[in-house]
């Protein structure tokens, strides 16, 4: 074991406002990944044997796999043995405690980020202070590898909702975890999902019982702090029959010159008539203007519409990360089930994004909607990759896809790879695509009315993203708009 004290401050003058480092003592595993590391993590969390075995099987699978190369992104090979697979603030070694006992440095971190840990607070800067108390958001906070705290636990408990760190759910609700963990994304689904399955440290677990409408928005806030660590969180959300939940995910990381790996897995299960709405605002550190540093965001997200008339809706606003590799997907197994994907992906400077969705239609009368808005600026590369698959069983399936790209400047790239596989001739599939550019005439028209170019680009980009923003919970939509403006700073000379 190594004990390290991070003692650095971030240079002033960068636009990435979440880029500071928190000075806490951490317990961090030395770099490298083997069976021993996996056993250490599992033991650290006091996991039952079945889970240790599950992790080891994932590791075996991973060791036999090759890193995927098909995405339209370029980066030097990752040395997976140079990464540390576990880091936790020392003060949290005994697991989450009450808020009073959490390291004040960590509390200050979230204060700076505007994430409310005290239950009377709502998402600062995100929520209008006049909003009624009904708009409160329960937050699970993950700092490096461990969950720090989960708010509003008791109120959720009254409604029968389980919302806790997954490491805790393994002990408190083993039957649910064992039944659903890996049921949508198997432990050897792909290279990064297998890696995650072997070493995942924490993440959120949600169970909404039959017929319950979750009384508030649930949210997880991920923060990478330690250097040379990867973050491998795992989220599992189960909406039992006829239930409803809206879930928000946010993430930031300090600015560091090295690249850091984030390989998360999110699994959603919606049983009959249940609905899950999953919204992400991804603002991992994107690296500097020359492409130095930044997060590699290689994430597997998939939802299963298991029962009839179930619905899963992904909404994502992706502005951060040096490289994004992410395809939130829906498997539409239940008849009349609905899958949705609304995405805004913005790349600036040297960022690269290869993102999109998969809609796998299996049930009859299943319906999916894909709205993707890609914005490229600077020297960035932005790619939409999507698959709509209609199985022979999916009679009368419908899909509508709309992919729009907006270019700012002439040194960036936008690419679209829409795949369609239709094996049922009663299906209706529609695809629309457009590419446009923020024109000099538009900018001049704004300037002539007194609006400077940065504000003008922000306004035009926000307008372009409107269809997606209106799918976000309102407070998030405002935040997302501001985030786009910050991310675009310097995009026009």
């Amino acid at each position, binding site marked *: 074991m190594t004990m390290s004290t991070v003692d650095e401050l971030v240079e002033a003058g960068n636009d990435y406002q979440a880029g500071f480092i928190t000075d806490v003592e951490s317990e961090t595993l030395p770099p490298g990944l083997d069976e021993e590391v996996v056993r250490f993590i599992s033991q650290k969390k006091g996991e039952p044997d079945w889970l240790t075995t599950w992790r080891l099987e994932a590791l075996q699978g991973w060791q036999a796999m090759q890193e995927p190369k098909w995405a339209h992104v370029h980066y030097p090979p990752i040395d997976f043995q140079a990464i540390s697979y576990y880091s936790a603030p020392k003060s949290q070694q005994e697991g989450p405690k009450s808020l009073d006992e959490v390291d004040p440095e960590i509390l200050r971190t979230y204060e700076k980020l505007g994430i409310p840990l005290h239950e009377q607070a709502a998402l600062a800067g995100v929520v209008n202070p006049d909003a009624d108390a009904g708009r409160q958001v329960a937050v699970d906070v993950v700092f490096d590898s461990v969950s720090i705290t989960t708010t509003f636990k008791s109120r959720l408990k009254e409604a029968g909702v389980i919302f806790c760190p997954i490491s805790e759910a393994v002990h408190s609700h083993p039957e649910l975890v064992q039944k659903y963990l890996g049921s949508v994304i198997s432990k050897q689904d792909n290279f990064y999902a297998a890696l995650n399955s072997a070493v995942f440290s924490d993440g959120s677990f949600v169970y909404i019982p039959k017929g319950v409408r979750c009384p508030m928005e649930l949210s997880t806030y991920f923060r990478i702090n330690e250097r040379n660590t990867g973050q491998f969180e795992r989220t599992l959300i189960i909406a039992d029959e006829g239930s409803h939940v809206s879930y928000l995910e946010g993430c930031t990381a300090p600015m560091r010159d090295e690249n850091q790996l984030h390989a998360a897995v999110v699994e959603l299960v919606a049983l009959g008539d249940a609905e899950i709405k999953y919204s992400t605002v991804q603002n991992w550190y994107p690296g500097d203007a020359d492409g130095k540093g930044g997060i590699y965001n290689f994430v597997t997200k998939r939802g299963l519409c298991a029962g009839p008339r179930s619905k899963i809706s992904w909404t994502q606003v992706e502005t951060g990360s040096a490289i994004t590799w992410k395809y939130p997907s829906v498997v539409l197994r239940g008849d009349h089930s609905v899958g949705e994907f609304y995405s805004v992906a913005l790349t600036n400077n040297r960022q690269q994004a290869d993102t999109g969705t998969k809609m796998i239609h299996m049930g009859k009368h299943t319906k999916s909607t894909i709205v993707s808005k890609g914005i490229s600026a600077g020297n960035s590369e932005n790619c939409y990759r999507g698959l709509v698959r209609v199985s022979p069983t999916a009679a009368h399936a419908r899909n509508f896809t709309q992919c729009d790209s907006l270019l700012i400047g002439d040194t960036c790239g936008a690419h679209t790879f829409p795949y369609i596989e239709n094996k049922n001739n009663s299906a209706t599939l529609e695809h629309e695509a457009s590419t*446009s550019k923020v*024109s*000099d*005439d*538009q900018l*001049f*028209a*704004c*300037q*002539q*009315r*007194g*609006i*400077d*170019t940065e*504000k003008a680009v922000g*306004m*035009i980009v*926000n*307008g*372009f*993203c*409107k269809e997606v923003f209106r799918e976000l919970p309102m407070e998030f939509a405002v935040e997302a708009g501001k985030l786009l403006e910050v991310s675009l700073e310097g995009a026009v000379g």
Partner: protein
Amino acid sequence: MTLLQVEGLKVDINADDAPMPILKGLDLEVKPGEVHAIMGPNGSGKSTLANVLAGRPGYRVTQGSIRLDGDSLLDLAPEERAQRGLFLAFQYPVEIPGVSNMEFLKASLDSLAKARGEQQPAAAAVIGEARELANSLDLDPSFLKRGVNEGFSGGEKKRNEIMQLLLLKPKLAVLDETDSGLDIDALQTVSEGVNRFRREDRGVVLITHYQRLLEHIVPDYVHVLAEGRIIQSGDKDLALELEAKGYAWLT
């Protein structure tokens, strides 16, 4: 005090990588309360003048000066010129899809207020005034929710420019062929708008091809621009003379 003072203005554009002179020593003086019409044949430099006043990229001022209220505009960015009270009604207003007219107007008013150290206007007040103005210009109030000029007809786009003029209340309005492409009813509506804008402390530069606009907006001065220079100035009767004789007798 002079509102707009242009002296010896020479402007080039890039044509096939070689500079091509468009304005070749232009003088113009507009005092508060005055309306100056600038007429001239195609290619005489009328639109260049409008764009150079507003600071549009792509033009190079090689000589001369432009002053607004005594301050040189040449080193100022387009938005700074706007913030100092210069407004250009575009000959070809652009579409900005997804950005509603209301959002655009509010952003404009906010930016202008901020630059001038004034308080930003309340949204409700702006909506109220914008609705009234839209109504007076025969624009359906629902247009405030639509994207800027998105799917507008030519006439609607021009009326939108006048609506912005009346809402933003600049010191100096430069109207670049605002009458082109308008039918007679729209021409009347737009002209009424411009006349409403006229005030003793505001100036107007009216660039037009046709005398018919000047029947509705009566100018104090008429200038003829040809080959990059003002070759003749007079009062409104000059416009009638041009209508009768064409430009040939002058050039």
